[in-house]
């Protein structure tokens, strides 16, 4: 195996020149606006003010700051809800206006990649129905799930290149009484966090400099339509995506490299549900154990539903078999929220995660027992009926 130090050195030494004029792929923006001129669809503009970031070939991508319509994620909301809660909390912390809609379905891509019980037209219709629902509110879609993000980019590409698919989906949307509208940019929440990293740093209240992290970029974020992914010459020499790493470095976390960074997490879509022996083996043997051996991180940080789930949940069985595991797994939104002072249980909801994360909290100077007692005290109000739900105001205390 190549020592990780060698790989790190190579990454710093080599530089990918981001030149839009030499991009080997078409600029999606040109085509979607041309199709708008031809009356094929409407394009929902990124609301001002927005941030600008660079994608792989140096093209500019607009990231909305607020007025965002939060396209939630099945796995985050269902099994690791502090992931989504942290995204909302960050928006509230900065006083940004947003919508958490109930007129939203899953992108249904997890099921599609797992079972193939769908087809291109259905997938495109689901995407465009959600986009239409967002446009009706005047708020701009911000996609929480890495797979939804990648899949919507794929779907957009198919719609761009197939007049027949556009006709079919436009007809379906019309029958549902919906507009045929596509967003100017498809934006993942972690791109919003990345764009906000300087503001997060300015408002940081917790020192994170003692924390060493490894980063797992999600496959469906950076391997699908790779030209529409954030790259930065200052981060890995633009040899790989800057997502997550840029955010962590901004808040002072020591990001350590490891040789299997490109490998997937082992989620496998159908495997995590019906063939978990594969997911467990891959997640622990190709990811967590390699990270432990080469970087010994305090935390693994990633930015997708399936990655957090697989890398975290798989460690229990591996530990039982004596494997060298035991690294907590968090999302970049949770790490950013921690840096801004968020409560580990009321906001990050870390009790939904599996691998012991109390050591990580202690290293940051947070007493996990005291924090848990505070959460349990808040639960008492729900149990005795004096309050039905924990509110955002409760998270401030």
């Amino acid at each position, binding site marked *: 195996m190549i020592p990780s130090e060698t790989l790190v050195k190579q990454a710093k030494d080599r530089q990918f020149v981001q030149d839009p004029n030499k991009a080997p792929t078409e600029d999606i923006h040109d085509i979607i606006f041309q199709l708008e001129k031809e009356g094929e669809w409407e394009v929902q503009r990124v609301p001002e003010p927005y941030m600008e970031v660079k994608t792989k070939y140096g093209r500019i991508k607009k990231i909305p700051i607020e007025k965002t319509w939060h396209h939630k994620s*099945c796995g985050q909301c269902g099994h690791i809800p502090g992931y989504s809660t942290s995204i909302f909390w960050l928006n509230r912390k900065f006083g940004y206006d947003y919508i958490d809609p109930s007129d939203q379905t899953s992108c249904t891509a997890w099921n599609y990649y797992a079972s193939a019980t769908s087809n291109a037209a259905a997938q495109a219709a689901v995407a465009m129905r959600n986009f239409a629902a967002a446009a009706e509110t005047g708020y701009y879609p911000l996609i929480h799930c890495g797979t939804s993000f990648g899949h919507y980019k794929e779907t957009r590409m198919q719609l761009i290149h197939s007049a027949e698919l556009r006709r079919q989906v436009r007809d379906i949307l019309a029958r549902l009484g919906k507009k045929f509208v596509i967003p100017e940019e498809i934006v993942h929440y972690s791109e919003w966090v990345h764009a906000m990293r300087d503001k997060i740093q300015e408002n940081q209240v917790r020192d994170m400099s003692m924390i060493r992290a490894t980063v797992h970029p999600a496959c469906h974020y950076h391997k699908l339509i790779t030209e529409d992914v954030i790259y930065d010459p200052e981060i890995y020499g633009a040899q790989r995506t800057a997502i997550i790493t840029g955010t962590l470095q901004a808040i002072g976390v020591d990001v350590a490299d490891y040789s299997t960074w490109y490998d997937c997490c082992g989620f496998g879509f159908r495997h995590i549900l019906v063939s978990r022996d594969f997911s467990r083996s891959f997640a622990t043997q190709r990811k967590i154990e390699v990270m432990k051996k080469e970087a010994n991180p305090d935390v693994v940080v990633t930015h997708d539903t399936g990655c957090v789930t697989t890398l975290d949940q798989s460690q229990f069985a591996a530990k039982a078999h004596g494997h060298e595991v035991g690294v907590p797994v968090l999302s970049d939104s949770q790490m950013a929220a921690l840096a801004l002072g968020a409560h580990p249980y009321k906001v990050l909801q870390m009790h939904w995660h599996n691998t012991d994360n109390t050591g990580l909290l202690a290293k940051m100077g947070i007493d996990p027992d005291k924090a848990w007692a505070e959460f349990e005290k808040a639960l008492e109000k729900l149990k005795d009926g004096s309050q039905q739900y924990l509110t955002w105001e409760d998270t401030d205390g």
Partner: protein
Amino acid sequence: MALDLRINKYADVPMEEKQRLFDEVTRDERFEEYLYGCYECGICVASCPSARFYDFSPRRIAQAVAREDVDLVYTLMNDSIWDCSQCFSCDRCPRKNSPGGLITIMREVAVNNGLSSAQEALEGYGRIVYKIMGTGTQVSPDMLQPNAFPDWGPHVKDISDNLEIWRRALPPETLHTTETGWQVDDKTIIELYLIWHMTGVMNMIQEVDEGLYEILVDVMEERLEEEGYDVTFD
């Protein structure tokens, strides 16, 4: 112990049937974007997670389809494609092939035609299909039961025991649900259901799981009636 050592265990399937399925794969509008040729460099295999743990090779898939080896494609469609992780790590192919994309199409063809391998692959998966098609969210908090995830340890029981109160302890108002990932409007679920009908997905479900199809139709038509819809399907 029964061992099947035949070199071609699908020799009894008529060649016309194998050709018909192959043609269905290549007719898909996405096909020409997913296959350009093969250098036999092995980059796709090296980056493939499934290749490390299964007798599976994305290169074999791409080459079999490119060579128009109808017989082998049929075998792979039955024995191999469900091992793919659909991570698209193989998209780093220097010829711009997408073996993962080819597999997406091959899986759809397998489901559309009710291949027994597809039915076997989807055994135990019906509940998930029902959840996504019937509720609009793929997984729900109440799926976290110890008997469903024994390999995730006692932590699953903690969640299951505290599910209702822990869901109420989530500040976002849409996340207090236990049977769906988040609160989805009735009208939204009905629109999703109509999409499944208008795009032929309900027919796909009927092809691979008649029982699941009947349940979905019963539940959703009751819902349509409750919401005052009077729908005529083709």
